[in-house]
């Protein structure tokens, strides 16, 4: 990277990205306004332009300081065009927004390339030519009665840096025109803050993880020793370690808008290329997730949005024929539910056709040929199944299965779950439930034979004791009546390939596990209590070990596998 200030490169990158996100957001609003639709989320056209102007201006200043001339030049030219829009010398048409979007893309690429040291690869000539040509063509065409020559003058000045030139171009209201613009996402919090490299936060998290493991060990040893002074000290230290862990976890939380903000632009482009009109609503942008978790969920969400756009939402003509408004509705929401974050992608499209799924499933031999109906859950599971999508090509829903399966795999690896609800003709809702952080979870420890397993509490509804005689057989499966519900019984012994029976009809220990709306009773040999576990990702989980999402180290130093509840059913 050729810059005089390499130490500011990361800051430049992250702040530029923030501004590009704001630019894209406002451009979408402008485009809506240009089509005569209400500008969603932005109070007015003026405000949207002001936001874009200010962000472009900031990028200009930063990139010039960094010595990234190509970006500085492009943003300067762009600023001139925006200035003309702001003064009303130019109307917002589709061709204007197209050029603006192209500029935003070029800026984005330029920013990334510059920081990555690929400044040579930056070629803004095409978009610059478009921008300049655009400016001239419209001036001539419109014979705009602006004798001050504001915009043109502006474009000619500033390309070179000269403090002494006092241009007639710049307008006195450049400062005031941005009044009333919404404050950026960042707020007062930055006051008295320091920036820390993400890598350091990761290291801190690892270290505190080790500390938590050591704490467990220490607690066990001190309990065994019976030494009261030691126990007291250990309790105090434990409390401090807990507080330390909470602080570090909190410091790693980032609001989901950091990822969500790129989706409106993505949806716009995808909808355009699919020939569809789509209104995207995003809610819960302020919800916070662990940084590493947020990095991981971006792709799955893109998958889900793309599925909704390509396969869920119909073309305007089809929608009209179905008596729906021409613009499809797409909702992306995030909300906090206890120690989890729930992310939903919901569309009002054609939904999943169960009949077809049933037929395809039968053809593929995935369900009993005698079945006449599938439950919601089965549909979801079938659609999510790898390899099922090939069968689906028959149904004209190709692609959907692959994407959903990828989402399933990814989300499950993160310790989360996926649920699909769909009504034919009304739409599909996919719900992702994720733990707040990747690195640490609360889990219930269970013993089977000599092994201990960790069951993440995210998926545990309650712990129960089961009377062996209360378990009955229903359609060849063991079930248990529990709170007026018939729950399938899963025996962890059997899952692990051990003989299922325990001697003598004693009470059996079990947890009611819950995945989305589905519940089951998981019977284990013994429940050992709840504890904090530090999740260690296992690189390659062998085929036979499908039911584990990772491993952890227990208080006594022994490893334990973490059960992937979703795979048990």
């Amino acid at each position, binding site marked *: 990277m050729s810059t005089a*200030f390499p130490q*500011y490169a990361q*800051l*430049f990158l992250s*702040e530029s990205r923030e501004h590009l996100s704001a630019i894209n957001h406002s451009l979408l609003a402008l485009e809506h306004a240009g089509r005569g639709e209400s500008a969603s989320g932005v109070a007015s056209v003026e405000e949207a332009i002001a936001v874009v*102007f*200010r962000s472009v*201006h*900031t990028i*200009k*200043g*930063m990139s*010039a*300081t*960094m*010595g990234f001339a190509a970006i*500085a030049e492009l943003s*300067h030219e762009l*600023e001139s065009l925006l200035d003309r829009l702001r003064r009303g010398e130019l109307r917002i048409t589709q061709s204007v927004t197209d050029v603006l979007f192209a500029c935003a893309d070029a800026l984005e690429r330029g920013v990334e390339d510059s920081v990555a040291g690929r400044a040579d690869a930056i070629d803004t000539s095409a978009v610059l030519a478009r921008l300049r040509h655009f400016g001239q063509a419209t001036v001539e065409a419109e014979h705009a009665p602006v004798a001050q020559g504001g915009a043109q003058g*502006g474009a000619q*000045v*500033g390309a*070179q*840096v*000269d*403090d002494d*030139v*006092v*241009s*007639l*171009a*710049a*307008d*006195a209201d*450049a*400062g*005031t025109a*941005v*009044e009333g*613009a*919404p*404050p*950026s996402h*960042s707020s*007062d919090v*930055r*006051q008295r803050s320091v*920036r820390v490299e993400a890598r350091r936060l990761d290291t801190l998290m690892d270290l505190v993880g080790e500390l938590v493991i050591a704490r467990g060990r220490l607690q066990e040893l001190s309990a065994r020793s019976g030494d009261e002074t030691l126990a007291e000290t250990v309790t105090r230290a434990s409390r401090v370690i807990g507080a330390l862990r909470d602080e570090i976890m909190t410091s790693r939380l980032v609001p989901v808008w950091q990822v969500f903000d790129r989706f409106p632009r993505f949806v716009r482009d995808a909808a355009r290329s699919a020939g569809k009109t789509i209104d995207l609503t995003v809610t819960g942008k302020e919800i916070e997730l662990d940084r590493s978790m947020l990095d991981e969920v971006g792709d799955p969400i893109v998958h889900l949005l793309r599925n909704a756009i390509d396969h869920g939402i119909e073309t305007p003509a089809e929608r009209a024929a179905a008596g729906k408004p021409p613009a499809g509705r797409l909702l992306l929401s995030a909300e906090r539910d206890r120690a989890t974050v729930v992310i939903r992608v919901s569309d009002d499209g054609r939904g999943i056709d169960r009949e077809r799924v049933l037929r395809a499933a039968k053809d593929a031999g995935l369900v009993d040929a005698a079945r006449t109906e599938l439950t919601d859950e089965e549909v979801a599971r079938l659609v999510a199944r790898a390899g099922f999508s090939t069968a689906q090509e028959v149904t004209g829903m190709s692609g959907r299965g692959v994407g959903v399966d990828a989402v399933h795999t990814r989300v499950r690896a993160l310790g989360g779950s996926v649920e699909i609800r769909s009504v034919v003709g009304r739409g599909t809702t996919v719900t992702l439930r994720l733990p707040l952080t990747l690195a640490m979870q609360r889990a219930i420890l269970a013993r089977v034979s000599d092994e201990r397993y960790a069951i993440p509490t995210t998926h545990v509804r309650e712990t129960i004791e089961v009377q062996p005689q209360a378990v009955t057989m229903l359609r060849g499966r063991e079930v248990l009546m529990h709170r007026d519900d018939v729950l399938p019984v899963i025996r962890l012994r059997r899952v692990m390939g051990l003989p299922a029976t325990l001697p003598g009809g004693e009470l059996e220990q079990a947890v009611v596990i819950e995945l989305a709306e589905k519940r089951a009773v998981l019977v284990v040999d013994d429940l050992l209590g709840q504890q904090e576990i530090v999740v260690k990702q296992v690189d390659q989980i062998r085929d036979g070990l499908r039911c584990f999402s990772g491993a952890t180290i227990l208080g006594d130093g022994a490893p334990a596998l973490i059960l992937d509840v979703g795979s048990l059913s």
Partner: protein
Amino acid sequence: MSQTVLICDDAVFMRTMVGDILQQAGYEVVGEAETGVQAVERYKQLRPDLVTMDIVMPDMGGIDAVREICKFDPAARILMCSAMGQQALVVEALQAGAKDFVVKPFQPSRVLEAVQRVLG
């Protein structure tokens, strides 16, 4: 005792950079503001020896912030930070009460020269 500075800019990048330049030169950065409104508030609260002020900020622009601050404290020492192409605004800011200006992209030596002139 080192002289105190309030840095006003809506970009963290710029605040960091100016802050680093000034701190390395022995000034004490006592506060930051990212909007004009904050700039005025913090000035009243912190009474810094020097303010660096960006022109384009959300909420209230830098020039209006200069006016407000000078209304409160006519002796306020404010250094404008402008981008290229904003010369007319710089003139307006000077009329509003700012003492001097530097133009982005910043060069540490120029920033320090300007700061010394203003604190003179």
